[in-house]
């Protein structure tokens, strides 16, 4: 919508003003004039809203127990902290640019470490790209491959950035839901009960399907896709010549003896899969913003082109720190001293603690097989808790989440959580407005603070 009036007034005003910058009347008028030309660029249509902005605002407004956003509130392991200290106080040349596609010692380690896991000989230059977090890796992949009109299959519930990234690339997101099946009698609901309908999944592939995004372990459910489930997805990707974008940031966080399987390691899949990982999630240092993509050179070269025309380089010292972390982990991998073993062991205890606490107040958590998160079904309370804050027509999960934030007991503040509906496409949100997501990768003190509040609210939560 062109505001012709504004354009005309800008044109008239311009020549009248002298060249003196700083005249206060000039400044005052300038504040109100805006460009008439199309802004923003159309690729931003529909993607300006971000659910985390409201969430972060709320978590800053209220001094709450933060069980929402996915980051640890404890320190990274000692060796990681040391690695970063060394990287930032060592060779002063680490303060300068490194190689564009990745700090060489890091790409070398990623190639050897993941090459073993994926059963591939990886070249540090051709098969590895270091990015600004796994988030940056995802963006780079979408921009490299998705054209206007291409379809991208997204398995819901999905990390919320896949849809806007698809849209920004001009693609069309095609959603297919994981659906809860009732658990076998007497057993607890687990994330493995949420499954894809194979026929429904197959029906989503068309001649325009460019890519499928697979997130395992899954955020927010914590589902760890089984080999059989991966084979189903792999078969369809091969049949329809589709690229698989595998978001595996939580790959080490698997519980109860479950195995994380990388789809790229299945027959026929290395040549069509981009495997994304995260140093932030691997080493509990989300603030370092170092991620990576592994894949075949004929696809990776396109990601390199996007990378060199968007950020070009990633920060050197953070990469040097991550390299050292991998060096450490490589030495201990598979042994009890490995962080990739110790960390999930510790988080399993956190998970179990949280599940127990939630159950003790009548809430229904879904036991996750992996990841940082679990979801809780709050539908039982729809009838018992009519007096929630917010408007009557506001989604239920939003009102329940607000209640948990604002519900103080004495001087203690509430808990902040994330609505699971934000991980669904708009049309499906209303069907999934009765779940909240909890993050259990938190300090013992945080979990105890949660326990305190849950116990105090027990009375209100009971019918």
């Amino acid at each position, binding site marked *: 919508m062109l505001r012709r009036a504004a*354009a005309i007034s*800008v*044109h008239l005003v311009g020549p009248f003003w002298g*060249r*003196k*910058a*700083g*005249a206060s009347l000039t400044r005052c008028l*300038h504040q109100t*004039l805006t460009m008439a030309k199309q802004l*923003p*660029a*159309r690729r*931003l249509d529909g*993607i300006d809203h971000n659910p*985390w902005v409201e969430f*972060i605002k709320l978590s800053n407004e209220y001094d709450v127990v933060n069980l929402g956003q996915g980051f640890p509130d404890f320190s*990274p392991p000692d060796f990681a902290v040391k690695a*970063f*200290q060394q990287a*930032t*106080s060592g060779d*002063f040349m680490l*303060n*300068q*640019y490194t190689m*564009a596609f990745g700090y060489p010692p890091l790409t070398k380690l990623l190639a050897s470490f993941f090459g073993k896991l994926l059963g591939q000989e990886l070249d540090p230059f051709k098969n590895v790209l270091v990015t*600004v*977090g796994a*988030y940056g890796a995802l*963006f780079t992949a979408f*921009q*490299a*491959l998705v*054209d206007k009109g291409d379809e991208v299959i997204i398995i819901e519930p999905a990390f919320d*950035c896949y849809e806007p990234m698809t849209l920004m690339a001009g693609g069309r997101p095609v959603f297919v839901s994981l659906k809860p099946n009732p658990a076998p009698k007497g057993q607890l609901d687990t994330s493995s009960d949420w499954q894809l309908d194979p026929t429904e999944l197959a029906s989503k592939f068309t001649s325009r399907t*460019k890519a499928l995004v697979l997130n395992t372990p899954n955020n927010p459910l914590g589902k760890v896709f089984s080999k059989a489930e991966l084979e189903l997805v792999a078969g369809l990707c091969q049949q329809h*010549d589709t690229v698989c974008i595998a978001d595996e940031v939580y790959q080490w966080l698997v519980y109860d003896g479950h195995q994380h399987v990388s789809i790229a390691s299945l027959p*026929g899949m*290395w*040549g*069509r899969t981009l495997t994304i990982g995260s140093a932030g999630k691997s080493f509990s240092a*989300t*603030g*370092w*913003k170092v991620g990576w993509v592994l894949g075949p050179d004929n*696809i990776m*070269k*396109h990601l390199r*082109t*996007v990378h*060199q*025309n968007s*950020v*070009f*380089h990633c*920060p*050197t*010292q*953070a990469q040097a720190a991550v390299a050292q972390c991998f060096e450490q982990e490589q030495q201990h991998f598979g042994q009890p001293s490995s962080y990739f073993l110790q960390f999930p062991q510790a988080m399993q205890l956190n998970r179990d603690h949280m599940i127990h606490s939630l159950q003790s107040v009548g809430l229904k958590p879904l036991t996750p097989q992996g990841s940082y998160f679990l979801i809780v079904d709050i539908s039982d309370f729809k009838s018992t808790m009519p007096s929630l804050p917010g408007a009557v027509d506001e989604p239920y999960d939003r009102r329940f989440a607000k209640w948990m934030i604002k519900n103080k007991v004495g001087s203690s503040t509430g808990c902040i959580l994330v609505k699971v509906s934000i991980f669904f496409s708009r049309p499906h949100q209303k069907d999934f407005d009765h779940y909240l997501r909890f993050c259990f990768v938190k300090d013992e003190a945080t979990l105890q603070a949660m326990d305190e509040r849950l116990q105090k609210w027990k009375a209100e939560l009971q019918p």
Partner: protein
Amino acid sequence: MFLAQRRLCSLGSRAKSLKTICSSKILGFATSANMAFKFKNAKRIEGLDSNVWIEFTKLAADPSVVNLGQGLPDISPPTYVKEELSKAALTDHLNQYTRGFGHPSLVKALSCLYEKFYQKQIDPNKEILVTVGAYGSLFNAIQGLIDPGDEVIIMVPFYDCYEPMVRMARATPVFIPLRSKPTSGTKWSSSDWTFERQELESKFSSKTKAIILNTPHNPMGKVYTKEELQVIADLCIKHDTLCISDEVYEWLVYTGNKHLKIATFPGMWERTITIGSAGKTFSVTGWKLGWTIGPNHLIKHLQTVQQNTVYTCATPLQEALAQAFWIDIKRVDDPECYFNSLPKELEVKRDRMVHLLESVGLRPIVPDGGYFIIADVSSLDADLSDMKSDEPYDYKFVKWMTKNKKLSAIPVSAFCDTESKSQFEKFVRFCFIKKDSTLDAAAEIIRAWNSQKS
């Protein structure tokens, strides 16, 4: 830079032709693992795969080569800057995510610093965005504000990423070369180079969305004057155009020159995006932190791009940068402030480079700002017969010089569009933000070269 693509282009750079080639390749492969068709790149990156830095950084990586190529200091950042990063590395909570649009203490410091220069209050949350280097700011600005079919005016030579970034947004770059005023005998200065006013006016059309301004300029070192900026501002206002002002070298201005912000000119704040760089400000290019300052109605779109690309930048680096800023904000008028001491230090190095290049009979263009100097190298009359014949003269020269003289630089035609390459292909860019021993080594090579000639 685009000569590599020319060879591809000779097959037809249109997607159709490449599709045909790819399809015919498929027929040759039996296995499903070699599907080339769908793995073709998205159209937005067609023809953007080659990059001058990738090519030349590899060449200069040989440790026996004296590297005056890439714009990377080999001097240490100031001690207090390194100390702040060490401190940040010891602070636990800095290991986790911070605010997406910029770490609170950093945007506050930037707001405080720049208020002095813009002479207005700058809202740290709404009028500032922290990005992955100034490179990231350029990307966010172009992705956020430029549509397919838009025209973007770029002055030649230009920092090489402007063209591919504009093309990646499916927009059309419109080029205008800087031209030298006639000079004879006297020193050739970057201020002798300017755009022709009428020629610039002719480049504006109804499709012009933005003009990219780089001052101080890379590679020439030109510091745009008040008069020049006023011409650009007048045209932006007349044609309702945005100005993306790349001011990464804003502190590196030499005696007799002043850096002016076009955003402070009347009518310009609301249509200007101004970009800065931690890497160039504090000699920490590896921190990859930059920022954009502008009115909220523009910044909010760059913020939308941010939340759909990287989301947030590294926390400890942002905190260290904030603390480094606070130190220098307190002494912004003192000679010890790095913003004042670095240009003094570099002016000496600049003068040394000028003298050195002149001593071999070259005519360098003395930069008024920045940390590069360009010189016409054709008078050296190097024997380039061994080099690839289809590359511009300066590409061949730099490769020959790196191989035979163990001195590297960057060809200036890498900073040119195809049409203007011939105007600048005799020029080579040298970086002088280097320690004395590096410049000594370069001096030795150049002296030896000179004595070989005579």
